[in-house]
């Protein structure tokens, strides 16, 4: 671009992209073919990663940032934004992702954390960050570190929506309570949530999170998308739920339609027909590693 007076990497520019993703579906993809299927099915963005969470869970071991070559291939295959994951606290991985032009960086508990005490100082980056949260305190701590978008953590790779529902209800329920609290009570809320007081005061005044909130973790069907959107999520991430199902493209399209028309059960019934088998889910009691417990 030629020289003219402009500012990049501003708070408005970084939060603005999250606004543009609202009402849409962000899909996990592991190669350019999947990325194209996702784009053709109406995804608003793709998350490029080497293994979807269900496979990370199955394989075990340390899960790291994906190969930049593979991320580049996906970037070149589609016209929609491309996100990629860095390990919690691994600012060097985030620097690499920013340098190759990734549109959104997910500091993600799905990968193995690199730092047991510190998340990335996200204010230092021009690329925007999304972070997971299980409750309001965690969400506000991530925002105070510079996250421009919050998603529920859910329990990735399980195809089970129960944890995402718990996280959304906790975050949005506490926002509702704080919006009713008087000014003296906000000091106690800040202490209990272990969150910065100014952010708690802002939430109390606006009755919403300072950045958009999306749902992630366990979405496998159009009805799951409708459920979380009705609970107050503003868009959805679908990880293993699409490409671990029997017939990904029709399921992807159906989840896109359901996310737009989440208040209309007749449309969701229509798009839910004949989608084949969803991914096989996992019961919470039977899993060994709780990814949602990573991050603090």
């Amino acid at each position, binding site marked *: *671009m*030629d020289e*003219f*007076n*402009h*500012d*990049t*990497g*501003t708070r*408005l*520019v970084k939060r*603005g*992209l999250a*606004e*543009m*993703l*609202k*009402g*849409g579906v962000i899909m996990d993809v592991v190669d350019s073919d999947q990325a194209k299927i996702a*784009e*053709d*099915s*109406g*995804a*608003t*963005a793709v998350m490029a990663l080497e293994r979807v969470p269900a496979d990370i869970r199955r394989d075990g071991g340390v899960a790291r940032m994906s190969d930049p070559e593979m991320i580049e291939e996906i970037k070149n295959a589609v*016209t*929609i*934004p491309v996100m990629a994951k860095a390990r919690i606290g691994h600012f060097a991985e985030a620097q690499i992702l*920013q340098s190759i*032009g990734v*549109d*959104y960086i997910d500091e993600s508990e799905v990968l193995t954390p690199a730092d047991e005490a510190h998340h990335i100082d996200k204010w230092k980056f*021009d*690329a*925007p960050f999304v972070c997971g949260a299980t409750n309001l305190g965690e969400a506000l701590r991530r925002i105070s570190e510079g996250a421009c978008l919050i998603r529920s953590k859910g329990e990735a790779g399980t195809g089970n929506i129960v944890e995402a529902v718990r996280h959304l209800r906790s975050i949005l329920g506490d926002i509702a309570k704080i919006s009713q609290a008087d000014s003296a009570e906000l000091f106690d809320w800040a202490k209990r949530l272990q969150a910065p007081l100014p952010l708690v005061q802002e939430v109390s005044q606006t009755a919403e999170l300072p950045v958009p909130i999306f749902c992630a973790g366990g979405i496998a069907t159009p009805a799951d998308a409708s459920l979380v959107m009705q609970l107050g999520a503003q868009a959805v991430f679908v990880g293993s739920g699409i490409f671990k199902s029997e017939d990904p493209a029709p399921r992807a*399209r159906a989840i*896109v*339609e359901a*996310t*737009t*028309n989440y208040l209309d059960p007749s449309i969701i019934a229509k798009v839910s027909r004949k989608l084949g088998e969803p991914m096989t889910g996992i019961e919470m009691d039977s899993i060994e590693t709780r990814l949602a417990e990573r991050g603090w």
Partner: protein
Amino acid sequence: MKVGVLALQGAFNLHIQALERLDVEATEVKSPENLNSVEALIIPGGESTTMSFLIESSGIFDALRKSSDNGMPILGTCAGMILLSSKIIDGRSDQKHLSLIDIETRRNGYGRQIDSFESDLSIEGFDGSFRGVFIRAPLVEKVGSKVEVLSQVNGRPVMCKQGSVLVTSFHPELADDDRIHAEFLEMLSKS
């Protein structure tokens, strides 16, 4: 006066809030029936590939072309501009567009998110500058002879008007400045 905002995907709520600040009744449009109940329409920012898929599956595509033929004022911002343009460059090959304004737009013509920017714009008829927020914005490559260019950045059109259709490659709904929405309502009151 009731203004609709296409609510298939994207930043439609911010447009509704802007209209409400201007004391106008605003409503979400998700179906052809919704479209029939409004006098003007805003197509918001979002992902144009997603919106072009949903605008067709919802049946709004044909209904909207008919409404526009009848002179309905339409404002398109960013992805909305792309959907309204007569030609899309670097889109998906089967991407639907409405051809309601004679401009050619290049998707993500200003680059990826890391290149997204804010800049002070001078807009024809406005006193003082307007903060333009450009997010993976479309680049206007070509404008037809009937198109008025109302603002430019770096020698390229970023706000254009043809008849009852107004488009911006930036996001007035993010700017905390409702003058473009007010301008659009002015077009509606004159139509």
